[in-house]
């Protein structure tokens, strides 16, 4: 069974801090994704990656960056955290780039920016 592990379930940070959210998958999946989940808005794609050192912008990349130095690890970075980035962040992975590939999700990180 695919395991996607996010480093923290809950995180509290201050405005202006640089925040790192880490995600690791154990199934040698090519693709990894970062979403934020907000009530009434569903899941919105922030960034995704098809391969090591590759990244693509999703629908809401502003204020975020990502890093994928190893195939199994995909990090989301909030360069200078702001209160409107308080949200639930979900990491996901999928085997290949096919449109029929289901994504496997981690438990999420609930991030609060004070």
């Amino acid at each position, binding site marked *: 069974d695919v395991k996607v592990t996010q480093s923290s379930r809950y995180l509290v940070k201050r405005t202006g801090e640089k925040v790192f959210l880490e995600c690791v998958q154990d199934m040698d999946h090519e693709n990894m*994704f970062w*979403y934020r989940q907000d009530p009434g808005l569903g*899941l919105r794609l922030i960034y995704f990656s*098809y391969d090591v050192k590759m990244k693509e912008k999703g629908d809401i990349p502003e204020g975020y960056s990502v890093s994928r130095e190893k195939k199994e690890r995909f990090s989301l970075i909030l360069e200078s955290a702001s209160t409107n980035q308080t949200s639930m962040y979900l990491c996901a992975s999928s085997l*290949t*780039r096919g*449109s029929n*590939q289901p994504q496997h*999700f981690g438990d*999420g990180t609930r991030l609060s920016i004070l």
Partner: protein
Amino acid sequence: AQSVSQHNHHVILSEAASLELGCNYSYGGTVNLFWYVQYPGQHLQLLLKYFSGDPLVKGIKGFEAEFIKSKFSFNLRKPSVQWSDTAEYFCAAGYQGGKLIFGQGTELSVKP
């Protein structure tokens, strides 16, 4: 732009009632469709998926969904819900490149 719409934001049912959650997607060429469920405090899990063939697909826990191409719809159904079905349900469409477009989600509350 590609989009997925879920008609119901919050549905409240009594146990044993039948469930139907609506989902519509915008046309974008070849599309594959998914329903995910998120139980309280848990990660999103795949309920079922449609790629091609029989438009009525069966998933886990007694759920099924029907793909109607002419209506761009992929509605989720269950004949008789249980209290344990209380969760948030997300419809998603997979497009070329492996991206998923998610609907807004429907929160289902089942009263015992």
